[in-house]
């Protein structure tokens, strides 16, 4: 961990033990306007979401439902028009190293001349800060993460040579070396092969055992109950009731269904 002098961002709250807080994400009445939209249309219209620490939550909905927008807002990439988002009790941009965000694959320039281990190493940057170069420990973590995702043999490949599934594994490996407590995944299993699907599911399951929290956007209703602990259904920027017979699991939203335990519902 770098000293505050060289850090990209100083964080006064990080003395808190990982997993000490019960609620990893607490979104209340979040409203976000589409970027550059002059009519002020809402990409998120009063969403509330609570994800207990150490669980895997799915944001489910069709394209344009607001899943990506919500993840970006939690990652601190989009400003809120109203409402609040807290991660581990702090405002979204307070404890940056605790949050890992996996963008949709299209948001990365895969033609850039960097190899797979170079991409994964960027997960260590938040711990390195300015001027510091990766050391032996950083390289060891990168190798271990590549091993864990089953892509160690691709370490020297330029990132554009990877298949979609391999790219997704590389991004997850980066989130692992970042050692974040909260992982935000945007469509991690969109159009990937079965091997990647299994590898990603295995790692996410193991992360839960380590007390990490996972929030993933998906438009895939299949296997939700196997891969996630709870699901919030979105449509047109709002939370909607789950489709009949659909997986719900832990209550993540505000209004439905009935909260299971004391202190889970907001307000």
């Amino acid at each position, binding site marked *: 961990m770098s000293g505050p002098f060289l850090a*990209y961002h100083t964080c006064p709250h990080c003395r808190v033990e990982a997993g000490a807080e019960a609620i990893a994400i607490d979104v209340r009445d979040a409203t976000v306007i589409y970027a550059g939209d002059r009519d002020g249309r809402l990409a998120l219209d009063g969403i509330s979401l609570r994800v207990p620490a150490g669980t895997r939550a799915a944001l489910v909905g069709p394209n344009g439902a607001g899943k990506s927008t919500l993840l970006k807002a939690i990652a601190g990439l989009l400003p809120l028009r109203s409402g609040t988002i807290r991660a581990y009790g702090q405002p979204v941009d307070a404890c940056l190293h605790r949050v*890992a965000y996996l963008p949709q694959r299209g948001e990365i320039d895969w033609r850039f001349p960097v190899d797979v281990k170079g991409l994964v190493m960027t997960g260590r*940057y938040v711990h390195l800060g300015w001027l510091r170069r990766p050391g032996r420990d950083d390289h060891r973590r990168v190798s271990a993460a590549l091993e864990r995702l089953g892509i160690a043999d691709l370490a020297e490949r330029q990132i554009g040579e990877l298949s979609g599934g391999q790219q997704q594994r590389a991004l997850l490996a980066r989130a692992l070396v970042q050692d974040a407590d909260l992982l935000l995944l945007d469509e991690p299993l969109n159009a990937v092969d079965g091997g990647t699907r299994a590898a990603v599911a295995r790692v996410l399951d193991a992360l839960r055992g380590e007390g990490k929290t996972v929030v993933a956007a998906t438009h895939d209703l299949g296997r939700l109950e196997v891969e996630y602990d709870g699901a919030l259904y979105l449509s047109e920027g709002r939370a909607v009731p789950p489709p009949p017979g659909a997986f719900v699991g832990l209550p993540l939203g505000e209004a439905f269904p009935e909260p299971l335990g004391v202190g889970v519902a907001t307000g």
Partner: protein
Amino acid sequence: MSPLLEPFQFGFMQTGLLAALCVGVSCATIGVYVVLRRMAFIGDALAHAILPGVVIAYLNGWSLLVGALAAGLATALGIGWLTRREAVREDTAIGVVFTALFALGILLMSTVRSFRDLSSILFGNILGVTPEDLWALGLVVVVVLAALMLLHKELQLTSFDPSHARVIGLRPEGLRYLLLVLLSFTVVAGVQAVGVLLTSALLITPAAAASLLTDRLPRMMAIAVAVALISCVVGLYASYYAEVASGAAIVLSCTACFGLAWLFRALRGAPAI
């Protein structure tokens, strides 16, 4: 005396060679980022936009280099600022600003009687570099190389994955400004060698040739530097023996290297980009 060494018995050829080396190193290294981040148009715009600064400096008897630097920095920051707004598209804004500044430079030049003195600004005259200019060029190389080396991690990351950069607390816009400032330093160096009209060639062509040959960033920079250095030396010889314009000879040497790189890639069987 050997024909290879003969030109360099003259002081102006020695200075020219050193200046060419400085220009080659700075243009080729930062040029790799210009190519990878698709900033070629901005580089071209910067080269044109420094013209009024140079002319104003000339008219007032100031150092041309200082005038160029001031205009380059103003343009870099202005482009950075303009493109943050969404009212005008980025390439449109750049097109409007740089043609206006270039026209202003031409207008000011037309008030000067001796166009000959200023033609070297348009077309470059690396053999007219003074020892003072050389010191400034050396400084540009040191600053550009040091910045690219010290900020390698951050420049690389913000180039291919700005979202991750932002999530971990970096400001991609800030690094973009920095790159624009470094670019304006570099462009000013390039103007000494090949003039405002051809400077973007020194930025782009060596880096483009290198990008055909490797997909590793450090290696790409090394190859780009080699291409630029070879081209500068070849251009100097051409200007000495064939008595052709040095700037144009340097640029065409770069183009020849690009052609060879393209051929090599095609023969090796890799799909050309």
